[in-house]
């Protein structure tokens, strides 16, 4: 392998990681408005070289945090989406069966040639042992996301998305990767990362994760933001928005969260809605516009039906 010209990522030398404040301003530079708690958890994760487990309802910016960290630190992002039935051949590595088969066929053809002049069976076996065994070797290895992340010499951000969707066996299999940044391949041995990746795991709490996995990670729960933080997020994500509209729409969304809904709108819905309102050239929040665009915000028919009669009231509140 050739030596990479780029220096490996080092958390102690990176100016973005000098302090929590530097991290907050750095993240806001790439468009992610982080609360202090988020930034602290990320800071600790990088300093202690531990994976970070991010929990929170859908759409609060769990995945976005990993993407923003990657772009802030200028590291490549490797993403692995988890689902039920994900196993190591899809997550870690797989043998290139096809090539292995071709290899054995070539081997068979050449074998007779190579061994034909051996005087006896024992001599032929000796010669056979002398040849390199390539069948299980790195060239035949097809790296999958986890292994790719360990092989990045300059370091990278590894995002293991929705870990709660995978099954328990896979979770156990992750333990080695997460605590020692290495994998064991039975046929070859242990492969260890030169530069440990920064690992994010996200979870929607579909099921409780095992204690062993939780123990190896720092934990970060991202709650729904308060009004001030959400306004900042909207302003950063939707640059053209007027301050007045921003205040109004965030106030509206915040009061929606107080209602008893099947799925409360989260940050991503707020941002989408802000974009929709800009597209429709809405200068201020009005009952008509809100009614037309409510489906951006609410994803269930019952929720929309429950909110519709109260729109006028809610708009008045958020304006006042």
């Amino acid at each position, binding site marked *: 392998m050739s030596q990479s010209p780029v220096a490996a990522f080092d958390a102690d030398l990176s100016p973005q990681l000098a302090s*929590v404040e530097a991290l907050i301003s750095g993240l806001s530079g790439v468009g992610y408005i982080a609360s*202090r*708690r988020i930034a*602290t*958890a990320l*800071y*600790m*994760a990088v*300093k*202690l070289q*531990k994976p*970070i*487990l991010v*929990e929170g309802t859908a759409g609060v910016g769990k995945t976005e945090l990993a993407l923003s960290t990657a772009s802030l630190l200028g590291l490549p992002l490797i993403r692995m989406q988890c689902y*039920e*039935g994900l196993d190591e051949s899809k997550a870690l590595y797989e043998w290139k*069966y*096809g090539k292995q*088969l071709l290899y054995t066929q070539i081997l068979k053809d050449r074998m007779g040639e190579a061994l034909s002049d051996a005087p006896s069976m024992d001599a032929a076996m000796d010669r056979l042992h002398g040849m390199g065994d390539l069948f299980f070797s790195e060239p035949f290895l097809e790296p999958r996301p986890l292994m790719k992340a360990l092989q990045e010499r300059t370091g990278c951000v590894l995002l293991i998305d929705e870990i709660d969707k995978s*099954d*328990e*066996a896979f979770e156990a299999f992750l333990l080695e990767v997460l605590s020692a940044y290495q994998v064991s391949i039975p046929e070859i041995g242990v492969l260890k990362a030169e530069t440990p990746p920064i690992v994010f795991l996200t979870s929607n709490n579909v*099921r*409780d994760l095992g*204690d062993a996995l*939780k*123990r190896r*990670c*720092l*934990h*970060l*729960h991202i709650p729904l933001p308060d009004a001030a933080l959400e306004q900042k997020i909207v302003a950063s994500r939707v640059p053209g928005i007027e301050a007045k509209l921003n205040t109004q729409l965030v106030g509206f969304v915040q009061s929606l969260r107080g209602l008893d809904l099947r799925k409360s709108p989260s940050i991503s819905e707020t941002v989408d809605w802000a974009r929709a309102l800009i597209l429709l050239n809405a200068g201020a929040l009005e009952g008509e516009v809100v009614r037309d665009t409510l489906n951006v915000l609410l994803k269930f028919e019952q929720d929309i039906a429950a909110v519709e009669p109260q729109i006028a009231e809610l708009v008045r509140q958020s304006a006042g």
Partner: protein
Amino acid sequence: MQAALEDFFRALRAADVRVSPAEAIDAHRTVEVVGFSDRELFRDALCATLAKSGEEVARFESVFDTFFDRRSQAVTPAPPPPSGSGDPMEGLPPEAQESDLARMLLDGDGAALAQAMEAAAERAEVSQIRLSTQRARLTRRLLEEMGLSEIERILAAARRLGGPGEAAADRLEAARKALAAQASAYVERQHELYASGSGKMLREEMLARKALNAEGGIDPVDLAMMQALVKRMAKRLADRYSRRRNVAWTGHLDVRRTLRKSMGYGGMPFDIVFKTKKVDKPSIVAICDVSKSVAAAAQFLLTFLYSLNEVVDRLDAFAFSGRMISVNKVLDDHPVETAIFEVLKQIGFQQTDYGRALEDFADQHLDRIDRHTTVIILGDARSNYANPRLDILATIQQRSRAVIWLNPEPDSYWSQGDSVMNRYERFCHVAKTCNTLEQLERIIEDVLRTYIPR
């Protein structure tokens, strides 16, 4: 500071935040990185290392506030000596000169007193407190360790001598009282930190074994706690049994499908397929007697089953006392905690008649039962001498995967009076006494396990 952190971990453990030795090491490393100067940074960083779920974060925060608040609370010193007088010890008997505590009290040195109290608390092992009844004894030990007996001797001597020492003795007396109050408050906080959680755990353990058909019903306070407990039990089971739907037969090659797949590669078996087994999700029919003696148990059974929705494919619930009705709709419209009262409003307080209830079921809902269905019947089988209709239960048994009868009464009562349990028992795969939450959890776990192939 290391000792302080260790105490903090113990307080966290008492509040049911798991801190393993490895996490403790992480926390120490965290503290090395962030230092103590920035309180918010210190708290957030520790929180990220130690608390591992949303609830744990909340508990962490409350423990953090109580714990690190204590350290900043200085002990209130004695009222200052009257201005002009020189040595505050003036007039006191000679013992007073040798007592550090008396000096600290009279000098009004709050910080030193707080420190002395910490040290004494360590010697008196105040943080080992477990029960609220230990508070008085530990307060006394704490004060003794601080040297209260010396003060009492000094006071007695001063009163005996009289004269100029009286004023100083008065001040000392006041300071002693303040100190006793401080010590009591200190022990109280320790109790809150280290023992409040264990008290709750004890209580929950007790509730898990509490009889559900107790005379006079269940205390409303207990009821709320038991509901929460049932939900937690259900979540635990759901987590355990929700994970695998396809269990691989490790190493069993599926030859037929492998050959089929190899067609595309000219007969080369590139894609190798292994055999898997599909795991059925349980399908459950619950039939609950809601007469007075069984209603509480029925409520918990329904709560339990409804909290299992992740692992249960289909759940139909029926309730009866005289006639039988389906309660699916009631349970959809109301939270499960209050649904049982709705059901009682509709059909409660009729004379229990198992035969009639089974007839109603056979007439309207028998097609719901197939060979995947587990039927759980909850009732005391006291049918007021009406025809028990064993034939219908036999039909149900033949059609279903299993019939499980849970009876809140112990089995020695099963053949007494109007109970026909011993006659129903023959048609059940399992008939068990189920009168506590613990038994309920065990039985439902058994049901779930029968669906998992070996």
